[in-house]
């Protein structure tokens, strides 16, 4: 039996709490994602999927309800605890890559390990391995502005894997790429998922991409309206 990696129960997220224009962005969300699942969260813009992603990624705390990440309650965590959780448990992949400028690919991949307190030698070694894994070993000394979009995203995926987190959280990872490179990036996610059995959560508005995953959670107006199996190959449980 796989463990529950994400366990949300009755989670609300409100803004302007207590004012007349209080906004209820997420309403009573209950969502459980198990270790090793490849899940996509889909919804149109304004549906609340970004807010949900921020909560899952421990960038924010729920207004109400409970959120257990790998069994740990996020509700009452301090900023430092949240930073440490992000560092150890979550690998972020962004639509706009968000590589650190003026740092070469190698340094970018090293960064999460730097924050995790890994020594310099180990950092460099692992960073090289990861860049090889994503096929970027040739360009590890290139700066972000010397890389194409697809190459940047591959470096970003390597960076997300740096601290070997159990969760990969990707926000529209192919949104800034043409279809061919987008395909390549998606293949890379599939490969990482199959080889490492990480929980991969893909946030997207693209239904075709969502269909590739094992499970599709659809969100609209802050509520989960659909949660079904996708066309992706299911991991044996």
């Amino acid at each position, binding site marked *: 039996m796989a463990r529950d990696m994400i366990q949300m129960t009755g989670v609300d997220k409100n803004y302007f709490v207590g004012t007349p224009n209080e906004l209820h962005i997420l309403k009573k969300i209950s969502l459980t994602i198990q270790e090793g699942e490849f899940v996509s969260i889909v919804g149109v813009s304004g549906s609340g999927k970004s807010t949900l992603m921020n909560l899952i990624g421990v960038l924010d705390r729920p207004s109400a309800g409970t959120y257990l990440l790998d069994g740990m309650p996020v509700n009452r965590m301090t900023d*430092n605890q949240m930073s440490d959780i992000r560092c150890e448990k979550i690998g972020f992949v962004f639509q706009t890559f968000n590589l650190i400028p003026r740092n070469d690919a190698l340094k970018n991949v090293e960064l999460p390990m730097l924050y995790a307190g890994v020594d310099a030698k180990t950092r460099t070694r692992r960073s090289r391995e990861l860049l090889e894994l994503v096929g970027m070993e040739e360009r590890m000394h290139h700066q972000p502005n010397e890389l194409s979009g697809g190459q940047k995203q591959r470096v970003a995926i390597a960076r997300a894997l740096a601290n070997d987190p159990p969760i990969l959280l990707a926000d529209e990872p192919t949104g800034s790429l043409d279809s061919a490179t987008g395909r390549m990036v998606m293949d890379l996610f599939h490969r990482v998922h199959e080889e490492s059995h990480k929980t991969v959560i893909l946030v997207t508005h693209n239904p075709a991409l969502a269909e590739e995953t094992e499970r599709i959670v659809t969100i609209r107006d802050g509520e989960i309206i659909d949660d079904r199996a996708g066309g992706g190959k299911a991991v044996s449980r």
Partner: protein
Amino acid sequence: MFLKENALLAVAGLKANRMRSFLTMLGIIIGIGAVIAIVSIGDAVTAKVSDAMSGIGANVIQVYVTPRDAKNTTTDVTVGGTNMDDSDMISMDQINAFRKKFADEISSVSVQESYGDGKVQDGHLSSNISVVGVDPGYLDVSSVKMVKGRFLRDRDIDANRRVVVVSDRLVSDMFRGSTDPIGKEVSMEVGGWNESFTIVGVYKYERSSLGGMTVSGNPRTSFYIPISVEKEQAQYQNYYYFSLKSKSIGGSDAFCKKIDSYFSKVFAGNSKYTCQSYNMESMMSSVTSVMGTISVAIAAIAAIALLVGGIGVMNIMLVSVTERTREIGTRKALGARNSYIRAQFIVEAVIICLIGGVLGIGFGVLLAWIGDSLIGVKLVVSFPVVLFSVGFSMLIGIFFGYYPAKKASRLDPIDALRYE
């Protein structure tokens, strides 16, 4: 925290914005440069002044008649009251009695009196002079160095002989170096007193930065005549100051105290005046205190420059934080604690200030070198001041980098990631 990584990152960032980085550093460069230049020029001038004064003789003490009301308020060497007359001054008898009393501690005593400025003339040849009446002891208590002939003797004084010791400068002015000046007569004119003197000796004129220049640029040199001859013309027969050379090295403060207490008894009956002795140390301290005051004033200006420079650094750091909002958001998402972000920006500010400080030291040394060569003194760079400058510029970085760094560290990661 991650000092090396952050320092490398900061340097890379500075390189990417060379012009902006340089302009930011400019305030620090000017401030630190000013500090270095002021301190090293000040040191050089003080060294030169003390050098010039030590030429007078380290164990020379000068005893002045000073007004009683000014006695405790100043170490100023300007003396000579407006209402002073012979009864307020020191008589030769008093000097001789004093000399007798401290015979063990005094190696020589000299009286001297400046008469005034004038010139010697022979046809179209002339030389500016300053007439000084001296006694033979003067050679001992002054820095005069003879190059030809002899100095004045007791016999010259006793017989009121019209003899003079002149400078080599006067000799070259008057004789164009063609003949031996010893035994030659020169006619001098000073404030209505015209008289001819026979040259018995020539001393070496040393150009001093402290004075002796005339408007025309020709130096005014001392024209040493017997004190007895000078006194024939002088208004007063007594002396308002005299010099002595002590046997103990340094003309110690203790001996000065003894002299002061001796003369306070001699002058006990005088309600307005008493005597005050000065040794090299007390004269030096008055010079250094003047230098100190000037230094403090300019240091205050340098401090303002550094303050303005620091504000410039803060300003550019705030711009940098705004420009790099997304980067900060990314770093936070990747697990950077707030304190790491804060450290990153403080290190960056410190690096800016440190580079500015080092460039400022170079700039300051250059300024000091130019200044020193204009004044004609040797360049002195004080290592502790350099060290202090480096440390101080780092402190500026920490102080003015803290607020922008704190602002960066407090950014909400979600807002920061979304920032365009």
